[in-house]
């Protein structure tokens, strides 16, 4: 737990192993994974379990959503005490929009893959981003279609080699760059092998009221972990270049670590939690949209695997606010609020006489 954030070392919590709600970690677990041994997705599942536990999210408030693919199976492997919906291929973003409209008090977490999001569901994904529906949107990005045995996906890098030897000749779709372009206020890239960074990003995403995108490179050990792959474990480990060291200080804990002056940025989240960004080699400001896009364009050109919080802008109103939704869920409004009075109908009828 202490590995997650420099601000959460609570020896007492370690003993009782409960979070601020008094719930144990096991409450946040799900069914056993049926994915291949060593799959990057399982590491992300574990990070989700840990993050939701540490943040202290009420399991019943969570809606777990997914599309189709190996990644989309994983919603069954965490948060067993939350409702889950494994929908159709590429359409999780539409489901999330609907869920968010029906009950804005839910916390949507969606897990999707690169095929699901960047190919079949790209249009719906981008429009959900434009609407700024609330969702922690995790792309488990392995550059291939695992469940149908390894075909290239749209995020495969140009020049990447498939297991059978084919070389991808098309430009990769960068979901992060697209999301930033379309106004997404929380865009991050991470690596399933970097649990510390991923955990901090997930907790920050939970606190973000709109769409929070986490594009997590998650190697497919069966079909895309060979020499020539740019989404393999060895390649990713070797090339990962974190923009900063990320920490997360939840609103319910004080900042009790001394951060080196001048090298740490604090970003305030809506619920009072804070993201801490400690400077590494880069001097990166994730609140500068133009810079973020420029950085991604260069990174893509130079085959640079940058990770971290790429862009953060809390000012974009989430969909629920844009639509002026009521505080209480539309789903459970009493019948008296759903049907106008008979006199209203009579009045409307008069206009047609």
């Amino acid at each position, binding site marked *: 737990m202490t590995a997650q954030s420099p601000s959460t070392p609570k020896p007492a919590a370690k003993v009782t192993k409960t979070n601020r709600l008094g719930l144990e970690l096991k409450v946040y677990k799900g069914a056993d994974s049926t994915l291949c041994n060593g799959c990057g997705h399982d590491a992300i599942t574990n990070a989700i379990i840990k993050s939701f536990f540490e943040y202290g999210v009420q399991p019943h408030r969570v809606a777990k959503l997914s599309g189709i693919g190996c990644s989309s199976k994983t919603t069954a492997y965490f948060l067993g005490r939350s409702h889950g919906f494994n929908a159709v291929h590429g359409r999780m973003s*539409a489901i999330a929009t609907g869920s968010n409209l029906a009950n804005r008090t839910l916390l949507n977490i969606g897990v999707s893959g690169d095929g699901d999001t960047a190919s079949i569901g790209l249009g719906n994904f981008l429009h959900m981003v434009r609407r700024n529906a609330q969702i922690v949107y995790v792309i488990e990005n392995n550059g291939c279609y695992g469940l149908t045995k390894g075909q290239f996906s749209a995020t495969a890098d140009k020049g990447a080699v498939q297991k059978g030897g084919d070389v991808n000749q098309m430009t990769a779709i960068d979901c992060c760059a697209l999301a930033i372009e379309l106004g997404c206020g929380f865009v991050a890239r991470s690596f399933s092998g970097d649990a510390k960074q991923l955990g901090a990003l997930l907790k920050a995403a939970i606190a973000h009221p709109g769409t929070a995108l986490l594009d997590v490179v998650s190697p497919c050990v069966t079909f895309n972990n060979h020499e020539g792959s740019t989404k393999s474990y060895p390649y990713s480990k070797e090339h990962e270049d974190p923009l900063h060291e990320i920490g997360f200080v939840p609103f319910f804990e004080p900042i009790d670590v001394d951060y080196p002056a001048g090298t740490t940025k604090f970003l305030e989240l809506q619920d009072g939690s804070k993201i801490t960004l400690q400077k590494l080699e880069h001097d990166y400001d994730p609140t500068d949209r133009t810079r973020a896009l420029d950085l991604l364009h260069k990174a893509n050109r130079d085959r640079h695997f940058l990770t971290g919080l790429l862009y953060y802008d809390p000012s974009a109103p989430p969909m629920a606010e844009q639509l002026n939704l009521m505080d209480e869920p539309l789903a459970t409004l009493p019948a008296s609020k759903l049907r*106008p009075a008979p006199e209203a109908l009579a009045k409307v009828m008069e206009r*047609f006489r």
Partner: protein
Amino acid sequence: MSVTSDHAGRQAAARAQSIVNDVVITVATSNGTGSQSANLILMRAIFDMGVPVGAKNMFPSNIQGLPTWFTVRANEDGWMARKRDADVFVAMNDESIAEDVAGLQPGATLVVTKALAGHVKRDDLVVHVVPFDDLVSQVCKDARLRKMVVNIMYVGVLAHLLDIEMSAVKGAIHRQFSRKATAAATNTEAAVVAYEWAKANLTPSGARVLRRSNKTQGKIIIEGNEATALGLVFGGITVLAWYPITPSSSVCESCIDYLDELRRDPESGKPTYAVVQAEDELASIGIVVGAGWAGARAATSTAGPGISLMSEFAGLSYFAEIPAVIVDVQRVGPSTGLPTRVSQGDVWKAYHLSHGDCKHPVLLPGNPQECFEFAAESLNLAERLQTLVFVLTDLDLGMNSWMSDPFQPITKPIDRGKVLSAEDLERVGQFARYRDVDGDGIPYRTLPGTDHPLAPYFTRGTGHSEAATYSEKPKDWKNNLDRLVRKFDTARKLMPRPVIETAPGASIGVIAYGSSDMAVKEARAMLAARGVPVDYLRLRALPIDTEVRDFVRDHRVTYLVEQNRDAQAASILRLEMPERATAVRSVLHYSGLPIDAQSIVDGITEQEAMS
């Protein structure tokens, strides 16, 4: 030409033998010229004279410049279906003039703008040439407005030719332009100028005239799409997601207007609904299914191309048992071509949309009143049955003007179906999402956000056990499919019952649905006049129940009238009762135009003669 006493005398003599309150007027213009306002004013003026009236707009898929026809049928007996031939034709469009004139029946009255008079070479028509361009120049100084204002002038001319009261015309103009005083004044002046000119220069044939009556008292005129929208608003819709498409866009546009007006929370002043214009139909149905899963009363509206795209989600709604409503305003075919023409060609598709063994309840409103009632009820049925429900209307019903009784308030309470709250779960102590507890095939569900350890379950399309766990066991899946059949049989009992009208001595029956109703009723009257009594069952929903079976069983032969080529509803009936398959015959109409009574009479008469 001036009015002489001789002229007036001839006129009076002719009118003594006039056909009163039975006339079909067709106006040919090009679209985008503002003729729709003039046409609605014409219709409204006749309605305000107390004469029942129906209107059909035959318009192109275009914004400006292509031929468009508007037909007003005024009929004392209330027959409002399309009639094939116009009694009075107004020709204003140079593109369609040759075809328009050639298509008229001998003896028809033709009002033609002077510029096009040279195209009229027939001597078997009553032709009135009107210098519309000169007349409009007199009243409209702004040359840019003339092509719009000229339209009201044919209304003035028709008022003279058919004895439409000018006070009714003026009233209708003010109603049409209630928020545009200048437009109202200009149009009134133009109508009067045209009327006075016609009075001074044209001698009506007097073959058909309109006289004040009392048959529209208490009635309304409304388009089906607006009625559907009101049904959703009063039915308690909470999430509307849509993608614009002809001819269904006006369902959602009206719905948005009425929601804004009528559905605000009195305490917070906030909307008690949410509307999203989605990026495509894949998303609009996805949003509906996501919202339905999370507990909203969610609907979308679309047309044929839209339901094609919605197909996969339709199956998910069926197998995962998630409430959803699709309003499908049917039109002709895919892509471009006839998107503005009517068809009932989505019956099969709606009934079985998606892959696997899918069957969906389909509501078939036959008039605006039912568009209202069924749209409201669709939300109840979707939640009660936890499945996708279709409201299947069509372009004729949806976009044309229909006379109707005012809608009565819905008295049936809003039904949220079998939803277990945390308190319910505490009381019953167990929950299995897909278990048939009540024997009606409908399981119980919980909504996300329910604070109870028993509440959560995992939703997936196929491969689930009773307890909603992942399962590929043959027994689990077969049990599930069999339960879904039980649920569908429960649906049979919950759907609106058919409406049956009998005639003494009838041995043949007619079944029809949707916008064919008015033409079928008129056809029955025509057949009865020929000594052929016909019983009539109006189908108002699928799946069918016992009434339909009994009706087919009890008639020597049943003609199923529908507006598609492949006898879609008839095929469904034949599958439901193979033993009577040969006793179900079809009368089909699929030209893109609304069905007319004569086609039905001919279709039945020809087949009866052969048997």
